[in-house]
């Protein structure tokens, strides 16, 4: 069912504390384009480490990673991949607190060579896709947890990456928001044909993924592929569509947060560096 090799891990090991803690032990995995994968396992089984290794944020102690068959050996190759081909969604959103929703999304586009107008258009489009068009000028602290994660998702897809990595993307959300975020992520994955690799320890969430990778003590203990029949049903667009009205315009914070001169300097600095370097 994998059409072509996107990301491969060969004999990947990762240890902490000079080998005392083994987080990944001889992991061999092969992910194809368009796959949806759930990584399952108890806390401490190495899921987060695996995600970070798969995007080069952590360099494995040993082993080889290949992108479209080519081994990735330098940090430079990884940063280029993260800028263009790999989007990451974290459990705790990781937004810039001083930047608005739109600016947070735009930051991922700095250095992509897109013009200001082009960036603006695509940011609007992405925020619209995640149902946040009306929240574009809000700061993260003015948004609910679910809305924040949707900003992070918009940011992760803004450069049309081939691979989306998500580490417990709903871990900080209530069940209603969690369901909406999952719907959004699977819809996007199907619409764009990208690969989604998601860490989750909720079995009902994992059921929506075509492939399960079960981990224990840093090892992949087994992998299961959902039957094609069941997957076909899941491929139908989900019913809980995200819409503008789903998030009523309510004040999360009664007072207005700090705005003004001392807020956007990070945005300016990032844009300047992206344009010059």
């Amino acid at each position: 069912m994998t059409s072509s090799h996107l990301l491969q891990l060969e004999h990947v090991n990762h240890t902490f504390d000079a080998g005392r803690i083994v987080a990944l032990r001889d992991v061999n995995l092969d992910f194809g384009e368009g796959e949806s994968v759930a990584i399952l396992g108890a806390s401490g089984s190495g899921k987060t480490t695996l995600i970070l290794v798969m995007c080069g944020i952590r360099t494995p102690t040993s082993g080889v990673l290949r992108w479209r068959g080519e081994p990735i050996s330098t940090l430079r190759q990884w940063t280029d991949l993260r800028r263009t081909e790999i989007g990451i969604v974290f459990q705790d959103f990781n937004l810039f607190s001083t930047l608005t929703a739109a600016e947070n999304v735009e930051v991922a586009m700095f250095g992509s060579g897109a013009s200001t107008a082009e960036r603006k258009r695509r940011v609007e489009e992405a925020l619209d896709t995640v149902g946040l068009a009306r929240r574009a000028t809000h700061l993260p602290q003015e948004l609910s947890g679910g809305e924040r994660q949707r900003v992070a998702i918009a940011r992760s897809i803004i450069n049309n990456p081939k691979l989306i990595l998500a580490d417990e993307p709903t871990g900080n959300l209530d069940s209603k928001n969690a369901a909406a975020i999952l719907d959004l992520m699977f819809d996007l994955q199907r619409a764009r044909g990208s690969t989604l690799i998601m860490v989750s320890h909720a079995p009902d969430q994992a059921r929506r993924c075509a492939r399960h990778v079960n981990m224990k003590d840093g090892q992949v203990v087994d992998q299961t592929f959902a039957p094609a029949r069941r997957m076909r049903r899941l491929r139908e667009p989900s019913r809980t569509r995200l819409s503008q009205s789903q998030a009523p315009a309510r004040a999360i914070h009664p007072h207005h947060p700090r705005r003004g001169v001392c807020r956007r300097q990070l945005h300016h600095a990032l844009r300047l560096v992206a344009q010059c370097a």
Partner: protein
Amino acid sequence: MAFAVGSFITLYGLSRSVHENVERSFDEHGTDLTVKRRGIAEPFGGTIPQEIIPEIKKIPGVEDVAGQLLTFAATDNDDNVLAVGWSPDSFYWTGAPLKAGRIPKPDETKVALVGSEIARTMGKTVGDDITLLGEKFKIVGLTDYHSIINRNQVIVKLEDLQELTFRTGAVTFLSIKLENPGDQAEADRVSQAVEALDKLTVSPSEGMLRNDSLFGLLTAVSSAMAWVALFMGVLMVLNTLLMAVLERTREIGILSALGWSKERIMLALVIEGFILSAVGSVVGILLGVAGSKFLSSIPSIGRYVAVEPTIPLIAITAIAAVVLGVLGSFYPAWVATRASPAEALERA
């Protein structure tokens, strides 16, 4: 940041101005040498007996000598003004620029020439009375000096002021006019001759304050205050930035996850620091200029000094602030980038 820059400019400007204004006020009287009692630190504390004036006049090279008595004197509404006493025959009178009225006649007593600024702030004009040390003086003229100190002084007859301050026969300073003002050798010879007469020190009127310990102290105190203000400001900024290491670490993790290399992240954070301190400096300069205007507008300060931040002062402060801001943002960024991106994200 803005406040540090602002208070530095104001306070440092104040200290410079104290110095400059006092010097300028001496220059305006057009004298060459100033004689003071040796060893008295208070500027108006020492007294010189008037009898010495004829003796100094005899020294070759001296054209004229005059003495003045200075004191801070209580006036109307519990205010204090600088009161100056000139003897009727002194050359000071001829050099006094008049805006209105006339110079007192030789035989008049309890009359005053009032500085233009005092006249304005106290609402006085020729013909009005002004109280000095509990006595009423009739204002016969308004002076038109440039220096802020002279514009805020009240000039009266020497005998009147001596009587009111129980300093009969005494003056605070002597001013000497030389026959050849440009001749340095002659000036030195006259100075030595005067100093040989009694316990006196002679200094060129221009640089007089350079050797004055009290004004030196005043300048030192106010410039020390200025440095303390700047130092505190810098400490506060550094503290904020160091506290921001944690936030920085998180931001670096995010940028790294978005595919930014460490070098670019560092550059961006330093540029951010530059933007922040540049904005802070501009706001600080505005605050400083406003603060100086405010200080000058307080009567008890504005009467003696016009606080004027100079362009070099503003420029140096702004450059220093920006350099410190960039260094200050470099350090936490550097600390933060030493953590690996993974650690940065996990600590978030």
